[in-house]
Structures are given as structure tokens and as C-alpha cells.
């Protein structure tokens, strides 16, 4: 399986989330994860105002073939949920680093993050 291009400006987690720095920070799942899942048909995400904890499960991503839990790469408060992605989860497959983002969080602490290179090394095996 060939790995799709990884944007170099993002952070990654071993659980296949990506994180874009900012205030708030944005995160979603990587193209590697989206490809492994197949067509995403349902997203269960926390609500605006919910507290999330780095490394803890904050949602579920369901495809016809399988289901995966979504881990938060950061600790903080959810300030925005991608309702367009909830309405049409196919954007997670079509544009995982763009329109397929999942949550925006006011970050108080970050978890264990990887560079694109480190993440690529971890998924190559």
C-alpha cells in the first residue's frame, strides 16, 4: 500500500490523527487512516464546549467495513465541530487534511506528537 503525501506542516499521532497549529488548533484523521477505513459514512463527534483530553477517545468514525475510535491529539475545549463533515462524511476520504477536518480546539496542552517524517516511518512498516 502506497502512503499518500503527508503535509509537512502538520503534526501527527501514532493513532493516525493530524493536528494543525493555530488558535484554535484543528485536527482530523490522516489519509492513511481514511484509506484503511474505506468510505466513511458516519462521524460521532463531541459538541462545542466539550472538554477533550490528549490521548483519550473523543469520537467514532464508521465506514461500511469497519469502525475506529477518534483520539484527541490535544487537551482543551472544543470550539468548533465540522458539521459539514458530519452531514457528508465522504469529505473525510476526499479531502482529509482540508474540508475533512473534524474538530477545532482551544488547546491547553498537547499530547505526544510526531513529525510527518516520524509518522511516515511508523506507517511504512
Amino acid at each position, binding site marked *: 500500500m502506497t502512503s499518500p503525501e503527508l503535509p509537512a506542516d502538520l503534526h501527527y499521532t501514532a*493513532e493516525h490523527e493530524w493536528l494543525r497549529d493555530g488558535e484554535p488548533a484543528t485536527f482530523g484523521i490522516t489519509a492513511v487512516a481514511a484509506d*484503511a477505513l474505506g468510505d466513511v459514512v458516519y462521524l460521532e463527534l463531541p459538541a462545542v464546549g466539550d472538554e477533550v483530553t490528549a490521548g483519550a477517545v473523543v469520537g*467514532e468514525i464508521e465506514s461500511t467495513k469497519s*469502525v475506529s*475510535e477518534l483520539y484527541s491529539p490535544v487537551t482543551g475545549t472544543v470550539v468548533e465541530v465540522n458539521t459539514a463533515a458530519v452531514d457528508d462524511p*465522504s469529505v473525510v*476520504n476526499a479531502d482529509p487534511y482540508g474540508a475533512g477536518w473534524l474538530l477545532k480546539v482551544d488547546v491547553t496542552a498537547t499530547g505526544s506528537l510526531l513529525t510527518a517524517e516520524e509518522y511516515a516511518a511508523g506507517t511504512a512498516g
Partner: protein
Amino acid sequence: MSGDVTVGTTTDATTGTPTGTTTDSTRRSPLHDEHVALGGTLVPFAGWTMPLRYTSDLAEHTAVRTAAGLFDLSHMGEIVVEGPGAGAFLDRALVGALSALRVLGARYTMLCREDGGVLDDLVVYRTGDEAYLVVANAANHEVVLAALRERAAAAAGVVGEVRVEDRSAATALVAVQGPRALDVLVALPGLVLAAGPDGSVTDLPTGLAVLKYYACLPAAVDGRPVLLARTGYTGEDGFELFCDAADAPALWRALLAVGTPLGLVPAGLAARDSLRLEAGMPLYGHELDTTTTPFEAGLGRVVRLDKVDAAGEPVPFVGREALAARAGSAPARVLVGLEGLGRRAAREGYPVLASAAADAPRVGTVTSGAPSPTLGRPVAMAYVTPELSAPGTELAVDVRGRPEPVRVVALPFYRRAR
């Protein structure tokens, strides 16, 4: 299951193995190079490396429901049973009445143990007076072959001469499934039907139109022999084409070339699984296994306790005693369809609960489940206690620690318009 399913270590519901990995120890389909050229995602499946998907599970599923899909099923096991005693032997080895099957007919049947447990579910084609083609699941191919050989040895001297021959390695199987499948076959260049059982030779559109569901016909494509069967595992009209492994790539390419303008797309194991689930068709290892008899699975009709031999005596087929006892008693569990009322899908192995209440007792187990692409809501098959198996019964499924409401519905979930 809660907490152990994470992105990237997803378990494939069809293969039970991690997706995106292949090993060198698996067997390759004669169409392997075609799958690679099409950019298919290849996964280990029952000892083979087979395509999980080419582009999108949903697109492939939808193509089969609305136009047509092309499947490589070369991993299936093909076993030929021939000889003067073939029909009488299969009557003793399998639960069905295969000696009564008409020539060029097909039948869904099962191979059971003495205790009635299912070793495999099979489609058997009668290709001649004294010739049958037994098609087994890939994962059970060796088990079926060994059982047939053992049962043939046991029947020696009781029935006429029988030869059991494994043709799996030399045989490829390609399926064209969907409402446009007939159009694809009619348009296939070089397809010629052999004479019908009555000696008639028909033109292609007429011959295909009269080829009934669960029947087969010898044919040729560009002079190469093909057994053309109107069978499938998707809930749609369709054809399955058995051919020599060496002829498979040319046949595959010809079908793709002629079918693409009609909406045909190559389709992988993922679509095959979601299609058969919507059609309420059991999958061995999920709805069927050695601890299950055909009766629990709602397939008691395939058990022919009434079959008799040439002398009019009841056939002492393997499993007869146990299955006769089961036939007369209520099963302890029943296979049902469950329709999800929420969004989260029940998956294989999840507990079925009497209700969504916190203290609700467990009343069954999910065997297959997924969000149905055609229905737009989760569906599942599950074994539940008989008292709770009536359509309309409201139950719940423990979906990773949280109960989701479901309703028992009649199978299949999806039935094509005819």
C-alpha cells in the same frame, strides 16, 4: 470490543485480518496482475491475496445495485464429482437431494458433520448426467475436499463409481452482478452458447434470457470454454463464469471493456460483503459454523430428510440423525435481521440485549453488521433467543459499551425489483 478498535489497526470485517497488509505466503488469483493494474487494494483473504476494493466500497456497492459489478472469485474452491455414482454419492455426502437436480441446474446446499454442524455451504451445479461441480468457500476448500474424499471412500461399493477431483488451481471464477449483467453478457464479443440440454442451439440474447436463475450452460468465449451460470451472492441478477485459469485475464479484460460503457465497475470483497449482508445471505464463519445447524440459520429447507435412494429407501446422509432430531425441536437460537434505529452500526460479535435499559439481559450475538449503503441505516444479522425473534420486536445492541436500539425485521433487508 470497546477501546481496542483504533484507526490504522482496523480489522476487516470480511477477512478478519488487518487491512493494507499482504504476506508472501498467500496464493494469487490468475487475475492478480489485473487487480494490481487497476490499483486495487489487495488483502489476505482465506489464504489468498484478493482485492478488497479498487476505488470506493460505496461506489462499487452502488454500481452493483444500479448497473453492474465485476468480481474475481477465483479463490473459491471448485471440486468436480464424476462417475456413475456421483448423484447417489452426493445424496449421502451432502444434506440436499442432488441426484434429483436436473442437468444444468444449480442448488444451494450444505456439507454437515454427523452432529449436524455445518462444515461449509456450497453451490452445486449438475454439469452432466454423471458430473457435478461443487463450489466451496475458499476458507473451507481443503475441509470440503477431504470430507468428500473420505465420504466417497466410505460409500465405495454402496454407490456406483465416483471420482472426486480438485480443480481449484486450474479454475478461475469471474462474476458479473447487477441489473445490467445480462446486457454485459449479451454484448460480450465472442460469447457462444453451447447446445441446450434438448440439443437446441439458441442465439445469444434468447439463450441468456431463458437461462434461469440457479441454472448453468456450457459456453465459449473466443473459442475458450466457459461454464456460464446464473448465480450470485449479491441479491441482484447476475452471472458467474467458470473458466480455465489461463483464460481468465482475457475474459476479465473483455468483460471490463464491453461493460464499462454500461456502468460495470470492478468490485472487491468489501462490496461483496455489504451486498450479501443486505441480501440476507449467510457467510460461513459468521452466520454458519460447525456449532450451527442449518435449522438455526433459517435454512432448514436445504436439509432433505425425505430423500430416498434408487430402491426407495431413506438416504443415510452424513448428519441425518442429528438433523432429523433438530427438525422436530425448536432451535435454541434463531438467525434474525436487525435494523438499527440510530446511526451507530452493530458489528460482528457485539451482544444483543433485551432492551436499551442498563440492566437488560443479553439475548443474543451479532454475526454480521454494517451501515447499509442501500437503506441508509445500520443493518445486522444476529442469533437471538426464539421468543424475541418475531419481526417488530424491539431490542438493543451493545455497541462498544453503549446500547443502540434495533428492531427485528424479516430478511432480506434488500430485495431487488423483478
